Structure formats: C-alpha cells, structure tokens
C-alpha cells in the first residue's frame, strides 16, 4: 500500500517538475495557423523571398547542367581529340560555377534580410503591444518570461530563415532533375543508382528520427542544465548551509549525464548519416563500374553520373537539423502569438464617462470602490477632492490604500464603482496620454532606465540646458554633475553606481522637468537618510510651487507643507482637515501624531546611523 502511494506521489511531483521544465518542449514542425499569423510581418519583405526562390531555381538548373557539360567535354573533347570543345566546356563550367556561387550568396543574403527585418518588426510589435497592456497584466507575469517573448522566442522564429528552410525548394527541384537526367543519360545505369535509393531511404528514416530526438533532448537539457547551474550558484549559501553539496552535485550530474548521453547519441547518428551518404555514393559508383564491362557506356557519362551521385544524397543530411529548427521556431511562434492574443488594453477611452459635482477641482474621487481582485475591495467608497493649487496630504497606516489612490488617478487600474475626475473630466473620457500628461509622480522606489542621468530626467531627447536648469532649481546640480561625464554619466545595470538619495533626486528632477500641473509624491523621502532628506526637503518645496499636489506620507514630518490632510484607514476616509483642525478633533490623526511624536522623542541619542551595513 505504502509503496504504491509513494510511487504515486513520486510520479506526481516528477510529473509537475517535468511539465515545468518542458517549457522548452516542442510543438509541431508545421502549423498553418501560425504561419498565417506570421505572414503579415513577412509580407513587406516578400519580394526578397520571391527573388530568393527564383535564384534558387536558377542555380538548381545551373548545378544540374554542370555534369552534362562535363560529359560533353570528355566525350566530344578529350576522347575525340578536340581541344576546342574542351576549352569551351571549361569556360562554360567556370561561368556556371561562379554564377552559381554568386546566386547562392544573393539567395542566402536575401532570405536573411527578409527574416531579420521582419523579425525586428515582430519584436517591435511585441514590445509595443506590451506597453499597451493594462497594469494588472504585469502584476501576474514574471518579467523574465516577457523578456523571453521579445528576445529568445522571436529569435527562434528567425531560425526558419537562417537555417535555409527555403533551400528545400531547390533541393526538391534538384532531386527531380537528377532523376530525370540520369534516366535520360542511361536508363540501365540509373537503375543501379535507384536500386540504392530504398536502402538510403530506410537508412534516412532510421537515422533521422533518432537524430531528431537527440537534437530535441540536447536543446531541452541545455536549457535545464544552465538553469540548474545558475540557480545553484545563486542559492550557494543555502546549498552550503544545509551541507547539500553531494545531493546538489548528484542532481546536476543527472542532467549533465543525460546531456552528455544525448550528445553521444547525436554524434553516433550524425556520423552514421554522413558516412552513409558517402558510402551510398561510393557503392553506386563501384556497382556502375562493376557493370561497365557488360554495358558499354561513354566515359563522360560515368563522370557525369559520379557528379550527380555526389549531389543526389547531399540534401538529405541537412534535413534532420532543419526539422528541429522548424519545430522550435513553431514553439516560439506559438508563445509569441498567444501573448499577442491577450486582450487587456491599458486605459481605453470609454463612452460611459460621468460629470463631476465640482468642476473646479484639480482632481476628485466620488464614492470610489476598488479592489485588485474585485471580490476583495481595498477602497470602500472613497470620496475627496483637491482644489487647483491645493497641497493635499494622504495619511494613514501601512496598507490602508494610499498608494492605490495614486495608481487610480493615473488610471493604471479601472475602478469597480464610483468616478474619478481630473481637471473636471472623468478619467475614462481621456485618452491615456492626455490623462497622464496631468501628472508628475515621484515614487518611493525610483526606477532608472539604462542611459544617462540626463536621459533619465528628460522624457524623449534630453534638452541639456533644461536638465541643468531643473537640477539647479532643485539645488542638486553640484551633487549629480560632479561625475567625470557630468549629467551624461551612464547609469549602470540596476543603477548600482547611484546612492538612494541621488536616485531620489533624479526622480524629483524627472518630475520637475515634466512640469505637469499635478504632482504626486508617493512616500518619496521614506528610504533616504536624514542628511539627504533635508536636501530633498528643498527639492520638494521647489517642485510643489504653484502646482496641485498629492503627498502620500508615512512620516508626518514630511506633510507640513500640506494645506489639507486626508486620513485613511482600511480603505476609507476617516477624517480630513488642516493639521490644527485634526489635532483639535482628537481622532486617528491626533493619535498618529502623538505616537509619532513619542517615537521621535525616544531617540534622544540619535542612536545608530545606518553607516555600517552588513
């Protein structure tokens, strides 16, 4: 009983893990539906493909003609003692050979251009599509997976073009041509060659299937091996703390062994394939020669036959590899196009917009009900508004829904009930660009993009004079421009070359540069030390001057600049008014304030600055 249960549970876990790792599994090699979706991207470059097809056909005929010219040269030139014929044939052959190579280049390059360009377009389309998806979509998707869609998966599709799938057309024409020509040259001799064909066919079927399996496994195992390796390196502390070196090495060894074995199999079948093709050619030649005594034929014909035989079996060896590439291309296409099918547009303009009760407000919320999951609301009927030029502070314990308000004003999410108005218009009546042009946001965690300080401050092409002006206004010029390259200093990966304070200043500058009528400060100074904070305080004042502001704050000290304070608790507005009014009222704000005061007060020694980090 127990054994059965164990076996089952083992099977289950293994199955899940297998399903998980088979993200790199393969679909069909050919899928018309996917090709139809791919076509619009290729269409603009289809002329290149047609050129390639024509070129392939022309060069196929050229290569078919070559052995015939050779036969002519030998039989009519060499064996008949006619030097002129040999001479002319030599020139013809040289011409064909050179033309063939030029055409080959034209063809491969044309296909590659079409492939690379259409896939660059596809990449751009996927990227654009991602930026048009609503915020909720990104909350559920790992970033890495989306990056893969734009990069690796599209690259896999591009392999169709790079691998020369189109050459199959030329190969087919060549095969048919060789058969016809050989029969025409000498039907009896060609029978010897064709007698070998079933043998070759059987061999090809045998080897190709196995080779395909091995290639497929190699691809899957390579991915798994690299993933496991990088994970063990990242989790090295855990491996060592639990002394699991042996187990981890064993686990890796399993993958490493099957990777090695798949390769060893591939080596065997691949060399069998190559050797078989060579062997069949040689055997055919040997048989023809054995028969020669009984079936007289010109020497030129033998030479031509030999040349055809060398060509005949060659394309077969490319087939298995092409097939695998085609499969992985289809898998890539499947993933890319199923992403493109996601229907979740970001902030579309809707007809059901409503009118605000107070048209003069810079922004207002009326009875807003919202939850990230509709069945779990985080805002329960929230209403408040800010007059133009008013500085409004949102205060409340962590998790009370303050940051959500900022997201909703920008319409990153759609609310379930109620209305939100900006500049007297329902947010659902704006286009997203128009709506968001009203806001400058300074978030708690500053995200910096690859590029320079200047390119991060300016949106679009940086106007350096304006960037400087903004930084001077914020009194941040000295601090940020002191690097060797000044504001053209590059931002390293994950912005490790900038301190939290510097990053925050860049975010302020970004907001000021944008010069939008409403500023949202979302816990903007929460993660910096007190020295930087005083510097930032000046930046805040500068930024808020003559603008409407929504200040979301943890620390009550940062909201002194506010005209009015809205107090939040578990998704509801519980109080609002000026600092003095609220203190007098003696409600939640007064409690928060006294606690904060007490907390500030019990740190008389200023205790430990976070200077020694572990």
């Amino acid at each position, binding site marked *: 009983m*127990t054994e059965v249960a164990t076996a089952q*549970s083992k099977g289950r876990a293994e*199955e899940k893990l297998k399903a998980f790792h088979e993200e790199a599994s393969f679909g069909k090699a050919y899928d018309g539906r996917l090709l139809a979706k791919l076509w619009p991207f290729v269409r603009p470059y289809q002329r290149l493909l047609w050129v390639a097809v024509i070129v392939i056909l022309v060069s196929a005929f050229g290569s078919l003609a070559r052995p015939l010219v050779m036969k002519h*040269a*030998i039989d009519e*030139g*060499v*064996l008949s003692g006619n*030097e002129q014929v040999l001479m002319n044939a030599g020139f013809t052959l040289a011409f064909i*050979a050179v033309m*063939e190579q*030029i055409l*080959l280049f034209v063809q*491969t390059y044309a296909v590659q251009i079409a492939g690379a360009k259409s896939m660059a377009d596809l990449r751009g389309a996927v*990227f654009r599509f991602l*930026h048009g998806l609503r*915020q909720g979509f990104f909350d559920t998707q790992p970033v890495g997976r989306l*990056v893969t869609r734009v990069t690796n998966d599209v690259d896999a599709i591009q392999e169709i073009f790079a691998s020369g799938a189109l050459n199959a057309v030329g190969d087919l024409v060549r095969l048919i041509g060789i058969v016809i020509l050989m029969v025409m040259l000498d039907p009896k001799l060609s029978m010897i060659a064709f007698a070998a064909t079933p043998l070759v066919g059987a061999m090809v079927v045998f080897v190709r299937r196995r080779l395909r399996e091995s290639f497929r496994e190699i691809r899957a195992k390579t991915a798994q091996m690299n993933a496991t390796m*990088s*994970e*063990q*390196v990242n*989790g*090295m*502390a855990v491996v060592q*703390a639990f002394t*699991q070196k042996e187990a981890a*090495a064993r686990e*890796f*060894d399993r993958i490493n062994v099957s*990777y*090695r074995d798949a390769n*060893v199999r591939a080596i065997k079948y*691949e*060399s069998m394939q190559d050797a*078989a093709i060579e*062997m069949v050619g040689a*055997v055919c030649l*040997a048989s023809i020669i*054995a028969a020669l*005594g009984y079936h007289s034929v010109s*020497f030129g014909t033998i030479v031509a036959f030999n040349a055809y035989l060398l060509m005949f079996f060659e394309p077969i060896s490319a087939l298995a590899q092409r097939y695998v590439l085609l499969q992985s291309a289809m898998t890539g296409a499947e993933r890319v196009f199923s992403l493109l099918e996601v229907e979740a547009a970001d902030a579309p303009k809707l007809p059901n917009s409503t009118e605000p009760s107070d048209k003069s407000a810079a922004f207002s919320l009326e009875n807003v009900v919202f939850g990230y999951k509709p069945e779990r609301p985080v805002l329960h009927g929230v209403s408040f508004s800010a007059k133009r030029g008013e500085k409004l502070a949102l205060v409340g314990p*962590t*998790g009370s829904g303050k940051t959500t308000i900022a997201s909703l004003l920008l319409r990153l999410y759609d609310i379930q009930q109620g209305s939100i108005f900006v500049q007297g218009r329902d947010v659902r009546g704006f286009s997203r660009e128009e709506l*968001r*042009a009203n806001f*400058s*946001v300074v978030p708690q965690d500053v995200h910096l993009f*690859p*590029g320079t300080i200047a390119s991060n401050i300016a949106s679009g092409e940086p106007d350096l004079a304006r960037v400087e002006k903004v930084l001077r206004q914020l009194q941040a010029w000295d601090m940020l421009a002191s690097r060797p390259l000044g504001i053209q200093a590059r931002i390293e990966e994950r912005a490790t070359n900038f301190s939290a304070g510097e990053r925050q200043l860049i975010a302020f500058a970004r907001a000021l540069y*944008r010069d939008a009528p409403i500023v949202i400060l979302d816990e903007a100074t929460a993660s910096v030390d007190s020295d930087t904070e005083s510097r930032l305080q000046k930046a805040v004042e500068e930024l808020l001057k003559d603008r409407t502001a929504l200040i979301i704050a943890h620390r009550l000290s940062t909201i002194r600049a506010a005209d009015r304070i809205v107090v939040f608790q*578990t*998704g509801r507005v519980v109080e609002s008014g000026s600092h003095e009014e609220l203190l007098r009222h003696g409600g939640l704000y007064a409690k*928060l304030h006294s606690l904060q005061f007490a*907390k500030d007060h*019990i740190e008389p020694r200023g*205790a430990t600055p*976070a200077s*020694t980090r*572990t």
Partner: protein
Amino acid sequence: MRIAGPGRISELFILASVCSDVRRVSPFPVTLWGQLRRQSPRYTLGVGLLGLYQYSQYWFDTRLQIAVDAATKGNRELALTLGVSLTLVALGAFFVRVWSRVAMFNGGRIAEYELRQTLLERLHALGPSFYRRMSTGQIMTRVTNDLVQVRMLLGFAILNLVNTVFGFISTFSVMLGISWKLTLASLATLPLLTLVTMRFSRQMFGKMRSNQEAIGKLSERVQSSIAGVRVVRAFGLEGREQSEFQKNNLDYLEKNLSLAKLRGAMGPVMQGITSVGILIVFWFGGYLMLKGEISSGGFLAFYRALARLSWPLMALGFLVGLVQRGRASYARLTDIYSAVPDVVDGGKTLPGKLRGQLEVRDLSFKYGEAEILRHVCFELQEGASLAIVGRTGSGKSTLAILLARLEDTPRASVFLDGVDICDLPLATVRGAVGYAEQTAFLFSTTAGRNIGYVLPDPDTELALQTIREAAKEARILDEVLGLPDGFDTVVGERGVQLSGGQKQRIALARAFVADAKILVLDDPLSAVDARTETAILEAIDRQRARRGLILITHRVAAAERCDQILVMDQGRFVERGTHAELVKASGLYSIFAEEQRIERELEILSQEGSNAVAVGT
C-alpha cells in the same frame, strides 16, 4: 601541414602544464593535458580508425583507377571483381568512419562532462569571498561559452588535426601516383581555401560575439522597460521607450545582417574556390588525358581524391581559431578551478555525541577595512534560547553567518561542545547549526521538495509526513495546500510567485526538517505578521527539548520569549539580560520596546473597525 605544424601541437601541451598545480577535489582531472591523457584510449582508437579510414579511401581511389581502365579496355572480369571489392571496401569504410567519429567526439564530450561536473563541485567548495569576486553572470559565461570552446578543442580540433594529416597523405599519394603535373596544378588555388577559412572563422567568431552582446543589450532594455512599466505610464514614456527599444532593435538587426552577410559569403567563397580548383583539374586533366599522359581511370580517381581534399583544407583553417579560443577559454576556466576555498574542513571530531552547546569567545570580524564585530562573547547552553536584538547594520546577520561557518570564521572564537568549529568538518558544524536566512532563497522545484531539501528521498511516505509536519509548524501548511498543485507546485524564481512572508516560512520549514541541534534564525519572519510570528515561535518553543535557539530579530515581542537577550550596537553587545531586566534598565532595548509598542498600537489602529486584508501595491 605548414599551419598545423608541430608548433600548434606543442601549444596544446603548454596549456596543460600551466595549470598542473590545480588542487583536485573530484576524481576527474581538470587540466587539458590530464583530460587528454584520461581520454587517451579513445583518442588512440580514433587515431587508428582515422588512419584506417584514410587508407581505405586511398585504396578505393587507386583501385577505381585500375577498374575504370580495365573496363574501358574491355577487361570485364577484372572490372567486375574490382567493382565488387570496391563495394565491400565502401561498406567497411562506413563503419570505420562512424567509429572513428564516435571515439574521438565522445572523448571531447566526456571531457566536457567531467570538466563541467568538476566545475560545479569546485563552486560548491568555494566560499563567499569567491562569490564576492565573481558574479553569477561571469560564472555562467564560463560554464556555457568557455566550456564549449574547450570541448571543441578536445573533440573537433583533435579529430580534424589527425584527419587532416592522414587525409593529406592519403589524397596526395593518390594524386602524385597519377600525375605530378596535375597535382601541382591543383595546388594553384586550393591552399587558398585554408587561408580564407582562417579569416572567415576569425571574423565569424567576432561577429557572433557582438551579435550576442547586442541581444544582451536588447533584453536589458526590455527588462528595464517592463520592470519600470509604472514609471513609463506615469510619465507617458511609451514613445521614448519605443524609440530607445527601436535603437537597440536596429542595432541587433544590423549585427544580425552583418553576420548573415558573412555567413552568406562564406559558403559561396569557399565553394567557389573549390570549384575553380576542380575546374582547373578538369580542364588540365582533360588536356593531359587528350595527350595520353593519364588514363580515364586516373582522371576519375584524381577527381575523387581532389574532392576529398577540400574538407581537410578548410578544417585546417578552422583549427587555428579553435586552438586560440580554446586556450583563452581554458584560461578563464582556471579562474574557477584554481580558486582556493577559504572555508575548509577541519581534522578533529566531536568528543562524544553532539550536545549542542555553543560558545563565542572574543569574536571580532572585518570585511576589508570595515569592522563588523568587535570582541563578541556569549554562551548558549543545550536547549537554551537566546535573542540578539539590534538595528539594521549592527552586525547581527554577520554573527549568524559566522556561527555556521558560512564565512571564514576566525580561529578560536566559536566553539561547539568545546571544540573550535574551525577544527571540525564543515558537515558537522553545519549539521549542528541550522541556519535560516532573512532573504529566503527557494529553488525552482516543488514546494514539498524545497521543504524536504535535506531529505535524501523526499518522496517516501515518511518524508512526506515530515514535510507536512514542518510546514504545519512553520504555519505555511494551509497556504501550500491552497497552491494550484499543493505540495507539488513548482515555486522559486521561475515558478509560482510567492509573497516574501510565504517564502520565509517555507525556508523556515526547510530549516525545521534539517533538525539541527542549534537553530540560528536570522530575522526569518520580518515579512510575516505579528500573530503568525507568535504562533511560529510557540512551535519552536515546543521543540526546545530537542534544540537550542539563537533568534536574531529586530522585534522585541519575539525576543521577549527567549531566556536571554543580547543587544547589539555597532558590532558589540551593549546590554544583556532578560526582557524584564532590560526594559527596566532603560537602555537601547527599552527604546526598541517603546518604539515597537507604539508601532503595535498603530497596527492595531489600522486593523480596527475592519478585518479587510490590506493589499500592498
């Protein structure tokens, strides 16, 4: 021949000797020379078979010549006998060729396997100072790209080196036997093939590298753009992102096309050279035949031999680059192979059965210049509990890491049952001191296997029970059962995303399963709410008979439960005592206690009136 001369061969051996001082942990040799020697039976077999194969080709061509001549002169019996034996030789050559490839390429593959396995084992043995020096990205480049280059050197390069030598001997014997004039004529263009290949392969490698760099930049751009999607939206940066992306996209396209152009040119140029060479032979050979200097059999045999020559000539061109790159790659691999582990096993054993008594005597520790711990002392009796409280940056986490010797713990500072942990085998120390870290790292495997990480077979009935029990103690059972596939749900970096608190509790359950005598928990519940934390600490209390506890925390409510509390500030202990004593003492601890009492009240305030779950954004 000139290019692959003895100089190149000796190069292979030089690279080997450079690295002979590498220390060995695993049975596999990690030097090129060592691997060559280890795979030598395969190589020897391969060399023999390649020789035999090339001889069979020589035999085939020369007998072909005789057979064709015999047939054209009407000697049908001889042509028939020879035709039959040629067929047999062709069949035999098939097997010889396959075996030779298998023997030699397998040598390369097996060497690759052993080198990779050893690489991982080395990485396991290396301590944190190594990982501070080399990033995951740098390590992964070595494991993927560099190892492939070395394999190419040990498989492809060696095979083709040998094959080229034998191939030259075989083809030139055929060709010179037919006509030295024609041989000379064929040499007019063919050596070009080697030079052109050399050039192409070098350029190709460079272009492939810049192609990879371009896609790297492209994916960094996409990564950043998606990770910062909120900023993009708030600032309406979609257009800018689009055009920045397009820049990278076009750059990648350009690199792609330049690679495509080179690839597209490579085939035609090489085939062009080959066919011009063959044409010259055809032409001049035809002329010689016409003059009666060579027979028609000689013509055909020469033609075949020449066709066989083109690959070895090209391979020679590839070899130069392969050896260079293989050598450079191997040098990068030795960065790992020759790194000396800073934390190694000690030679002593524990005097008796493990009791679980831990003592820290005058422990000081530095990272570079920064003093992290200064003269730290404390003692933990069997089954006792101890809390270490302090602010961020006070040195708590470093202390925790040193206790399990996950860093290079100084000698004579930490003692387990009275023995310096530096004198004990690492397995003993880490088996006795179980450590759960704050930033829980989970592997991309099932939740069950993450919890049962230390179990040799996590699928037995008993193991499943243990895992379940630990999950329950760590208060994660219900949440695990609520996952799409329960315990069989794949979690971790690439699996289902868990919250910080969930990850921490799974990591804690993992530490429970490990069942160490002393449990060191480094703020393992920072992302868990207070009520759950209390429940978990109660569970730990219940297991106290089995193990001692060192709890590193910033929460007074958690520290309160411990027998003894140490307060840490700037790398030293500033207070010690029980909760009651310390609160009275009105030192740093009492400040923490007061601060947290207020925070607690704030939390209660926020929870009042509604029990709705707050969702952070």
